[in-house]
């Protein structure tokens, strides 16, 4: 495989032909990265102070998310995501309040606090398919969503994202093989952040890259610098065009690095060499893009700083609102299992509500998810 495709190099200098993007789009991309970092920081603090149970750090991989998200048309396209792509949500303007409602699992959470934090589900302003914890399962789901569009001769495509570890799952194989055969309008974006919790790529596959796996399925495989937001945008845009015009799927490997733990419950210093973090810190996607935008005259040090302050304040405010909301009602345990609640669930719900309204012993709500 060739070296990963690049437009902005590690020092933030333009080394390739930049895609034609409006200033407002470039700034929207920049803001999405800044927002992700601020959301990450806020969630980390909320978790460390025991206010939320869990979060997934996104630091380091944001350019891959934003570049991918910016290539989509929210009116027609769907995202079938994994759990480490917050910047896609910020780029498309998914409600910050809704995201925090999920983090707190409060009464306004779309899923009524049923899922762990970060397992988001939204219908607007873009179809953000509900996230599941088992890995790779969203890949064949994405192919099915895409095939439905194709059958109805719609213009939409599906972007599905997953990490390097997920390339070893059944879903990856089933999904890519199927999409190859059916020419499904889908883009497979593999966020190679080099770690599946603690498992490094050299223990994940003997293939020379993840992108090369596309060959086995008869679909193009492209490798891109995942910390270069414009390069990711260009490569995903090309794949989207290809899919939209009936050309079928593309596998994209965005090479990046997870600059933190797998989750708030993970300590990466146990298995990641500190020198690696130092090396990848120099390739930081935010610093790189900021320098590019300043060089191009779209941003100044002052306006960049203002965006950061404004974003951090917005996070703080939104988190406070979500924190202040009550938890979901007890009955929400029993709704949405089926469209209509069957008799046995009605009975169990009545028993549950009556038990907890009568009993004189509080429920022990302490305890943390161990992972």
């Amino acid at each position: 495989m060739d070296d990963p495709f690049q437009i902005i190099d590690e020092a933030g200098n333009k080394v390739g032909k930049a895609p034609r993007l409006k200033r407002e789009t470039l700034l929207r991309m920049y803001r999405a990265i800044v927002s992700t970092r601020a959301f990450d920081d806020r969630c980390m603090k909320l978790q460390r102070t025991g206010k939320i149970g869990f979060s997934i750090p996104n630091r380091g991989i944001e350019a891959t998310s934003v570049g991918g998200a910016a290539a989509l048309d929210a009116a027609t396209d769907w995202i079938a995501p994994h759990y480490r792509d917050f910047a896609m949500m910020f780029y498309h303007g998914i409600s910050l309040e809704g995201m925090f409602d999920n983090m707190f699992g409060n009464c306004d959470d779309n899923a009524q606090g049923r899922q762990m934090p970060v397992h988001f589900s939204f219908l607007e302003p873009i179809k953000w398919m509900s996230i599941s914890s088992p890995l790779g399962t969203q890949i064949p789901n994405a192919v099915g969503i895409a095939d439905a569009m194709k059958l109805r001769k719609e213009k939409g495509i599906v972007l599905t994202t997953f990490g390097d570890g997920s390339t070893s799952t059944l879903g990856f194989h089933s999904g890519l093989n199927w999409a190859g055969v059916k020419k499904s309008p889908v883009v497979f974006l593999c966020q190679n952040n080099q770690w599946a919790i603690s498992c490094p790529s050299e223990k994940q596959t003997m293939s020379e890259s993840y992108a090369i796996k596309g060959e086995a399925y008869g679909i193009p495989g492209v490798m891109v610098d995942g910390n270069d937001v414009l390069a990711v945008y260009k490569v995903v845009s090309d794949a989207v065009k290809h899919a939209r015009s009936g050309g079928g799927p593309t596998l994209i490997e965005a090479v990046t690095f997870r600059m933190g733990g797998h989750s708030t419950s993970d300590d990466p210093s146990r298995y990641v060499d500190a020198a690696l973090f130092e090396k990848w810190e120099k390739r930081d996607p935010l610093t790189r893009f900021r320098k590019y935008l300043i060089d191009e005259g779209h941003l100044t040090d002052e306006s960049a700083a203002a965006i950061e302050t404004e974003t951090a304040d917005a996070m703080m405010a939104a988190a406070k609102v979500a924190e202040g909301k009550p938890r979901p009602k007890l009955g929400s345990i029993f709704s949405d299992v089926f469209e209509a609640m069957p008799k046995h669930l009605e009975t169990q719900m009545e028993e549950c509500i009556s038990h907890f309204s009568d009993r004189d012993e509080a429920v022990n709500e302490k305890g943390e998810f161990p992972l």
Partner: protein
Amino acid sequence: MVQAINDGLRSIMKEDESVLVMGEDVGPKGGVFLATENLTKEFGEDRCFDTPLSEDGIIGVGIGMAMNGMKPVCEIQFQDFIFPAFDQIVSEAAKMRYRSGGQYTVPMTIRTPYGGGIRGGLYHSQSGEAYFAHTPGLKVVIPSTPYDAKGLLIASINDPDPVLFMEPKALYRAFRQEVPEGVYEVELSKTREVTPGGDVAVFCYGAMVPVCTEAAKRVKESRNKDVRVVDLRTLMPLDEESVLQAARDCGRVVIVHEAPRFCGYGAELSALIAEHAIETIEAPIKRVAGFDTPFPNTLENYYLPDARRVLDAIEEVLDF
């Protein structure tokens, strides 16, 4: 029954353009049991198509289609081969509505032939209904007659939630029954009283229904006792009221299934009756089931419950 299923698919496909049939060999070949015969010819490759040999793919892709406006009918060629798709069924299809607060739903039907009767050995004979009935968010339906097969299948396809539709392959060509033309539904979660009776209640489903009916006939002849054979038809959500009513009316209960006894569906029925109707029960609840072994090939007919084994169980509860 297999013709009724084929007719059911054809009828609903004619009426509803969002219904698709997909699976291994369901296209020009018409499926290994011919359940999908001529559907590709009649509706084209977009509506009835062959898929790669990937159960995980069939269900995983079907879920995506169902979330995006279609009503896929996915065929798993033998229920024994469903396990690569277990994750998609249990983790994704069954939980999608719950985990998204109803934003995303999966109105998908999974058709799959199950059970013994064709000398299929370990991997073409199993009855895995208990694995699935244990999964919140998934419906499990098993017909035992051609009329029910068509009506329950159409009701399953029109249901807003995922349904596992298990077809007793032993009954595919066992007997003939006239079925109405066009679309009709048999309501889910309603049992069917196969024979009236007040002496013993026998609960069963699928291929065990004719076996139990034969046993009931013999009990009538030998003991002049009336057995109420109840065909459950939907295992989840179960029509608990009619099960309890039959148990109370008869006071003696036998439960029959092909699947292994341990943690089988009969255990749930037995517990349900014990919890809610024990005061009316006059004899131990008796289960007739497959043994807790893998499904044997040559000795298949010693493994499968037959009318004689059911008859013995009925006599045992009558004599208690």
